[in-house]
C-alpha cells in the first residue's frame, strides 16, 4: 500500500507569502519595542509637559525636517526598486537601492552633526549641563537620545541589509522571479521610516 503526500505548494521550493509574513511578524516585535518607548514618553510628557516643551525648543527643527524628507525619499526609492525588479530592470533596481543607501548615509551624517552639537552643550546623560537641568528636561533628553539612537541603529542595520541585497542581486540570487529578500529589506526600511514619522513630531515639533 502506497500513500502519496502532496505538499500544499508542491512544485515550488519556496513560499513567498509565508516569507513575507515572517518578516511582518518580526516587524510587529519592532513596533512593540518602540511602542513601549512611546508609552514611556507619553507618561513622562503628561507628568512634565512644561519641561518637555522647554527642552524640545532646543532641538533643531530644520535638521529634523530635512531628515524626514530624506527618509521619505529613500522609502520611495526602495519601493521603486521593487517595481523595477518586478519589471525585470535589474540595473535600475540596483541603482535605486544604492540611492536608498546613500540617503541613509545622509540621514546619519545629519544625525552626527545634530548629536555632536548636543554633546558640545553637555546635554548627553551624564554630562555636566545635563545634570543641572530640571527633572523633566533630563527625562526628555534621555528619551531623545535613547529613542533616536535606537532608531539610528535601525538605519545602520537597514543600510547593511540593503547592501547585502545588492550583493545578492549581483550573484543573481535575487532576480525578477525571486525577489522576496529585496521585498523584505524594503519592508524593514519602511518600518524605519514609519518610526521616524512618529519620532519627528513628538520630539521636534512640541508646542
Amino acid at each position, binding site marked *: 500500500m502506497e500513500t502519496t503526500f502532496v505538499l500544499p505548494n508542491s512544485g515550488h521550493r519556496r513560499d513567498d507569502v509565508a516569507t513575507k509574513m515572517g518578516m511582518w511578524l518580526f516587524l510587529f516585535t519592532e513596533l512593540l519595542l518602540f511602542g513601549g518607548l512611546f*508609552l514611556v514618553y507619553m*507618561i513622562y510628557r503628561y507628568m512634565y509637559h512644561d519641561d518637555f516643551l522647554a527642552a524640545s525648543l532646543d532641538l533643531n527643527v530644520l535638521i529634523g525636517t530635512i531628515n524626514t524628507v530624506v527618509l521619505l525619499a529613500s522609502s520611495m526609492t526602495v519601493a521603486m526598486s521593487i517595481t523595477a525588479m*518586478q519589471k525585470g530592470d535589474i540595473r535600475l533596481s540596483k541603482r535605486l537601492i544604492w540611492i536608498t543607501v546613500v540617503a541613509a548615509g545622509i540621514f546619519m551624517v545629519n544625525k552626527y552633526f545634530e548629536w555632536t552639537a548636543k554633546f558640545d552643550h553637555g546635554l548627553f546623560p551624564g554630562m555636566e549641563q545635563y545634570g543641572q537641568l530640571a527633572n523633566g528636561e533630563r527625562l526628555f533628553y534621555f528619551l531623545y537620545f535613547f529613542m533616536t539612537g535606537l532608531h539610528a541603529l535601525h538605519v545602520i542595520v537597514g543600510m547593511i541589509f540593503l547592501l547585502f541585497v545588492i550583493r545578492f542581486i549581483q550573484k543573481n540570487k535575487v532576480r525578477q522571479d525571486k525577489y522576496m529578500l529585496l521585498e523584505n529589506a524594503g519592508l524593514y526600511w519602511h518600518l524605519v521610516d514609519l518610526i521616524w514619522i512618529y519620532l519627528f513630531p513628538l520630539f521636534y515639533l512640541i508646542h
Partner: protein
Amino acid sequence: MSENNHTSTHAHDTHIVSYREHASTFLGLILLTIMTVTVSVFGADLYTLTVLTALTIASAKAIVVALYFMHLKYDPKIFKFMLTIVVVLFAVFVVLAMVDYALRS
C-alpha cells in the same frame, strides 16, 4: 490612481505598483510633512490641539506608507488583519496606562 498600470505578471499573480503611484505617494507624504511643520511653527498657542493634530497627521502618513510603500493594499488581507491586531493591542496598552496615571492621586 492609474488603474491601467496595474499589470498582473507571471507565476504568482503579483501586483506591480507603478513608479508614478510611488511618486504621488511620496508627494502626498511631503505635503503632510509640510502641514505638520506649519501647524507646529505657527500654531504655538493651541497646545492640546497641536498634540492631537500632530498625531493625526503622523498616523495619516503611517497609513499611507503601510498601504502603498509596504504594499499592504495589494497583499492578501491577512497582513492587514494581523497589523490591525498589533495596533489594537498597542492602543489597549496606551489606554490602560493613561487610565492608570489619570486616576492616581
